[in-house]
């Protein structure tokens, strides 16, 4: 089987009149972690969404295992987990129900694994409350539990530490470290840098 490897070649993207991505290129192999930095409006989110295949770039390609992701998007998506700015949670479902549907659509998930994931992010105490009653930090934790449950080789995270307290940031760090230890790939857009637990981070700085 081909190695899990993400390569990006000469990515150009325009949003309206703005040339947002100007020839972005990088390659990331197993256990590789890439930190995408840059000021607001430098196109971090656009880059991540382009990597996911949501946005079609004007020029350039994204290769997964050496093959253009456009050729088999479902297969690429099955190997990928994306967390955007906002945790993708339904306000009128409880945290547990949210995970059951969100993760369940992609893979079968056992009840005890769900419990374990919720406990891991410190959600055991409130995981049966409706998400609308949870704080922003708590929602972020639920999303992290979902991320861990998906068990996919490639994580693409947009500001994973937003709204989290110190302990929550550590949690993000250890989740990423574990993903890397498993040989997974992580690409994260961050403002203040990834938590200390993550070592050997490569950095991609987007110009303003």
């Amino acid at each position: 089987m081909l190695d899990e490897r993400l390569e990006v070649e000469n990515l150009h993207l325009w949003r309206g009149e703005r040339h947002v991505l100007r020839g972005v290129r990088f390659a990331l192999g197993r256990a590789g972690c890439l930190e995408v930095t840059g000021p607001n409006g430098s196109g971090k989110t656009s880059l991540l969404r382009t990597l996911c295949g949501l946005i079609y770039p004007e020029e350039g390609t994204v290769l997964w295992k050496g093959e253009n992701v456009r050729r088999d998007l479902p297969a690429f998506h099955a190997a990928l987990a994306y967390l955007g700015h906002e945790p993708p949670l339904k306000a009128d479902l409880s945290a547990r129900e949210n995970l059951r549907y969100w993760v369940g659509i992609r893979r079968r998930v056992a009840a005890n694994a769900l419990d374990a994931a919720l406990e891991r992010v410190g959600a055991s105490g409130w995981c049966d409350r409706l998400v609308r009653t949870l704080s922003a930090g708590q929602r972020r934790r639920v999303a992290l539990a979902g991320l861990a449950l998906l068990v996919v080789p490639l994580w693409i995270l947009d500001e994973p530490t937003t709204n989290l307290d110190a302990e929550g940031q550590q949690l993000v760090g250890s989740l990423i470290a574990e993903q890397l230890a498993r040989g997974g790939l992580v690409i994260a857009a961050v403002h203040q840098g990834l938590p200390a637990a993550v070592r050997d981070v490569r950095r991609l700085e987007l110009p303003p």
Partner: protein
Amino acid sequence: MTWTWFHRLASPPYVYALAARLTPWFAWPAALLIVAGLWGGLVLAPPDYQQGDGFRIIYVHAPSAWMSLMVYTTMAVAAAVGLIWRIKVAHAVAASCAPIGASFTFAALVTGALWGEPMWGTYWEWDPRLTSELILLFLYLGYMGLRAGIEDTQRADRASALLAVVGVVNVPIIHYSVTWWNSLHQAPSVMRLDKPAIAPAMLLPLLSMLLGFTLYFVALLLVRLRGEVLARERSASWIREAVSA
């Protein structure tokens, strides 16, 4: 190898220049044919034995109705090409079509009503063709509304292209259903407009008008296309060249 023409047609600078060069080649024959058609239709053609001179409305109604359908088809084909192969020029063609088609659909409705009054004794008859034409006008308006509602040109292109394709699948169904519905309610005495046989002196001006309008549409399309292509282009050097020219 055989695809080079296709690739060149997808290249905005080439299309921009080509459109500018081709426009007069369509515009002048169109003007000639339309003037000839008007002369033939208004002066040379004999009055109809049933409708008298009233039938002369056909020389503007039929070309308008033809335009409304042909433009929609062109738009849908261009939209499908743009959607499948992600060709900007194709989207530019589709975007250029909508206002032209909508205005001629409107003209077809008005001239149809003006023809209806002397023939049916009423301006509006729920005749399947007029009803379909009205629906077509709404399809055009929806298409233009959707374009106007989405700010990002690329997304507007793709969303409206999808709508055009959905519409073109629906147009025959709508037309069939309207005809079916009309057959239930039609009073048998209403006069039909179709003519089984038409004298050459009447037919020739009509053909001249139809061809003239078609060429006129191509010329209009070429002018509009240049604007739409320009709006979608990002290469500064080329835009400078196009604008200064």
